[in-house]
């Protein structure tokens, strides 16, 4: 009998979660960083959601967060006009990079030597982390706030999405635009998949897939609601998306068919990403929580346990989960409605 998805809720943030990122797979597993409007980005163990630490120092909402592949460094972008680089093992702040406006996006190169930043001052900056006092290289051209800036094509090019309704591909050395995509509305999110050079873009109710090198469109898929973020599975068989209607949608990438939708969040979903091994995906929401969802529902992985029919623990698990299902939503509902009433934007 097909099992029902049990998402794992990671609590701790007190304001909306607006961005999240996974590290690569390290000898200690993989890690997850979440950016939150409460100004306190958190590091978690990627496969369990267990909290590891909170990066303390920002004086404003954190809009973007990222980890390097080895999960030894973290970078955050905040409304206090700074981007910060952190030691992701000790939690110590390593570098503060002052900007002239809200910083929205941060991204490390593969070797963690350079940091890309982008934000409301419409300028993309490249910082050499070995020479942090040196002036960053600047790339200008966008006419509105930059939402996301990512390294691509082996860190030789840069992809950026801005509120000017364009996605631009830049050459790192010449700082010139190589190619540009224009849309009818603002792009809500962007994900770059190096393996296969795929770019995932969301706007309105659409999830669009492009070739990251040529910016040729591969396909577009429409969802039932406005989508804020989408992520493609590493094997490129599924993709997940979430947005305004609080649900997570799972689609077949090949057939574009909507396979499943999951309820769970109490607010719009702002970000969703697959883990590096594709076994789970994490979503961040306006409700201040992160949720971890299984790709293969029912499989034993992380904190999820596959229980065979007839096993005693199935009954216990079923009782616990059905009790929790009955009581927790009522408690969360009360807490959630109180929270929404009392919190200010």
């Amino acid at each position, binding site marked *: *009998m*097909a*099992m*029902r*998805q*049990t998402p*794992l*809720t*990671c*609590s*701790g943030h007190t304001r909306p979660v607006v961005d999240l990122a996974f590290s690569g797979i390290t000898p*200690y597993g993989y890690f997850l960083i979440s950016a939150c409007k409460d100004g306190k980005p*958190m*590091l*978690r163990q990627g496969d*369990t*959601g*267990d*909290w*590891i*630490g*909170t*990066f*303390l*120092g920002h004086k404003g909402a954190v809009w973007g967060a990222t980890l390097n592949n080895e999960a*030894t460094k973290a970078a955050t972008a905040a409304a206090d006009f700074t981007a910060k680089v952190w*030691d992701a*093992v*000790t*939690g*110590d702040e*390593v570098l503060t990079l002052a900007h002239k406006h809200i910083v929205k996006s941060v991204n490390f190169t593969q070797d963690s030597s350079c940091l890309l930043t982008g934000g409301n001052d419409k300028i993309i900056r490249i910082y050499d982390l070995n020479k942090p006092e040196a002036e960053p290289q600047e790339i200008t051209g966008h006419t509105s706030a930059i939402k996301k800036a990512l390294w691509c094509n082996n860190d030789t090019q840069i992809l950026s999405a801005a509120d000017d309704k364009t996605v631009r591909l830049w050459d790192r050395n010449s700082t010139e635009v190589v190619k540009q995509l224009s849309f009818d509305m603002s792009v809500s999110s962007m994900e770059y998949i190096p393996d296969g050079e795929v770019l995932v873009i969301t706007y309105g109710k659409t999830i669009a897939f492009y070739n990251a090198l040529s910016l040729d469109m591969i396909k577009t898929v429409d969802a039932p609601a406005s989508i804020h973020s989408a992520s493609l599975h590493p094997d490129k068989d599924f993709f997940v998306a979430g947005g305004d209607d609080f649900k997570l949608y799972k689609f077949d990438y090949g057939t574009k068919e909507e396979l499943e939708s999951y309820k769970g969040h109490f607010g719009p979903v702002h970000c969703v990403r697959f883990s590096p091994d594709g076994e789970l995906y994490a979503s961040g929401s306006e409700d201040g929580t992160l949720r*971890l969802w*299984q790709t293969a*529902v*029912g499989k034993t992985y992380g*904190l*999820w*346990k*596959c*229980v065979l029919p007839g096993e005693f*623990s*199935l009954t*216990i*698990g*079923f009782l*616990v*989960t*059905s009790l929790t*299902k009955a009581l927790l939503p009522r408690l969360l509902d009360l807490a959630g409605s109180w929270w929404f009433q009392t919190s200010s934007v």
Partner: protein
Amino acid sequence: MRPHVSVLRLPRGPDPNGRGFDPNSPRFIALCPTTISASTETGTDSVQIREEQRARSVLRESFLRTLIAMTNKQVQFHMYERVKVEAKFGASDIDVLNFQVSELHTPIGVQKEALLRCQDVISYSFDL
């Protein structure tokens, strides 16, 4: 009704008392030597790292002892934006992010109880 997938436990949440990054975790212990930032520039051997760690321990202990010595004493704080305030020092929080002070003399009056944000403090001085 379809059964829900069983869960071993819920993800652990934040510790209300600290910022985490457990120094006893296997990852911290294994990767820690590389996080002594002053040592990463030059290729140092274990003797130098030990010396540096000893120096750091001495400095850290002195600092913690000054915090104890400061309790209930009048302390002058020099802060950013040319702010100079004086207060009776109460305590520091565990990560030295905030100082709890009483009778804080500010240009706009005396605050009976206050929290000073440590990152805003440039220096402070007091009489032993």
